[in-house]
């Protein structure tokens, strides 16, 4: 069953400095099934975050449609929870207050929302930190909270915008494993933006590879690695290396045929 359906998405914008019109996204279509983990990869500046921002409803597309659960979306909504690279936690709310925020917006009674929030905090490994404030947590723990806050709200799709990019390499590995574990346990639908090829392969069921600007879907790579996955075991698989190399080729190969000299219009 399709959770997220993107068809014919395009985005033009006017560069604030030069004033020229730029086509960031040419024509992007794909779908994400319910309970599927899909990553989007592309050369830097290809507009993958813009795709996420359009799906989230933060940015208006120039053309095309975004459907979540069959409904066309317009503007942000609780059916699409977003995990931000900057965490975007509310500094004035405790860990519990952050996790229960979405449920409060839905007017879930206090007892019930606290129970749900605690359940998800435990799921991401934050039990015992309920009454701390976000700034008292490490970067990795802050992002765990970011994930718990979205999952507790039980959205149709969880959108993740390079969530581990600002976290140190060791912690990142651990967070990726924990995210996989949570995913394998709960099977939420996840749409994941990243520029880390190994990360995309390790986490995903499918990887969408975009071309350079104006971006189109270059290829959608199916990742058929067995679950549960751990870094130790998964990276040993020849299939993992093979997929990773294949995507690297797709990305570097794409960089050659687009030059600043070639203007889209």
């Amino acid at each position: 069953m399709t959770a997220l359906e993107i068809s014919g998405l395009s985005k033009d914008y006017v560069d604030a400095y030069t004033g020229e019109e730029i086509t960031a996204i040419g024509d992007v279509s794909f779908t994400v099934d319910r309970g599927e983990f899909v990553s989007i990869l592309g050369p830097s500046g290809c507009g993958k975050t813009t795709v996420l921002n359009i799906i989230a409803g933060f940015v208006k597309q120039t053309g095309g449609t975004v459907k979540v659960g069959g409904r066309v979306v317009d503007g942000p909504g609780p059916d699409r929870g977003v995990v931000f690279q900057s965490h975007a936690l509310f500094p004035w709310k405790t860990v519990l207050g952050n996790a229960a925020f979405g449920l409060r917006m839905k007017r879930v009674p206090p007892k019930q929302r606290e129970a749900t929030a605690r359940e998800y905090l435990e799921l991401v490994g934050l039990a015992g930190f309920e009454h701390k404030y976000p700034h008292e947590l490490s970067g990795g723990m802050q992002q765990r909270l970011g994930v718990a806050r979205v999952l507790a709200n039980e959205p149709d799709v969880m959108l993740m915008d390079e969530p581990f990019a600002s976290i140190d390499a060791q912690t990142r590995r651990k967070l990726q494993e924990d995210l996989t574990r949570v995913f394998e346990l709960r099977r939420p639908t996840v749409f994941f933006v990243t520029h880390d090829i190994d990360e995309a392969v390790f986490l995903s069921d499918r990887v969408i590879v975009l071309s350079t600007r104006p971006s189109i879907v270059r290829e959608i790579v199916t990742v058929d690695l067995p679950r549960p996955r751990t870094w130790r075991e998964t990276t040993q698989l020849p299939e993992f290396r093979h997929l990773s190399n294949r995507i690297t080729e797709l990305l570097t190969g794409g960089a050659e045929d687009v030059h600043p000299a070639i203007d889209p219009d």
Partner: protein
Amino acid sequence: MAVTTRASARPKRTVAMPRRILVNPVVRTLGPFVPVVLLWWLLAELDVFPGAFFVGPDTVVGEFAELMRKGVLPGYLSDSLTRLMYGVGFGLLIGLPLGFAIAMSFWARRLTWPLLLFFQAIADIAWLPIVIVWFGFSLTAVTFVIVYTIVFPLVLGIVAGVEQVPRELIRAARSLGAGRLRVFLEVIVPGALPSLASGIRTGLGYGWRALVAAEIIVGTSGVGFMMFDARRVGDVAEVFLGMIVLGVLWYATDALVLAPFERATVERWGLVRQAEAGK
């Protein structure tokens, strides 16, 4: 002066010996005043300056007792505080809604921002003459000036505060199902609080000065009036006393009300640290 909390947050390298005494916050705050008062006393006792211009702390304390006994000081003090309270009350009543209204609307901001800067630039005290023309030498005139001094820093503080709320936080709230009102109440207001607090603090600092100036110029009662009246008859002790009273009052307001509020928002929520991490 939104920056006071910073200094105390910095670990102090104090002399090793009487550590426990030096660490005590009361000693650390009041201690430095002891040698200053002693020096002041010494200068007065040695007659470094003529007595008509400079008196010692003993004389000032005597004056204090005298004025307290006569009930002059309590009366003037309560006059000054009442005016300040009226001014602050109305200032907040006008400034808070106005600030958020301007901060939330692009067009309101565009059309009022230059005017705000301009009216902020006309020093509050410069309004006193025209206000006297309108309202006479009255409480209304003084209140008007204090309201004026508070409203502008407050509005500017709110607008700056709202602008500083990270866009991602608003987006996060929206995608967690918060409507416009909820975003306003749960994200924008708390996010703007520290800046709002420092706006109130700046405003009160100006308001306090404006009060003294207005009392000197309008001159019917109050601590400012007391000081200038004393100056007219050459009573130095009373002028000194007035200054000390003003200083102590402000220090108390700042230390007991404003600073804790700023600390609560800034330190507890880690807003400063977050800002620093972003550089």
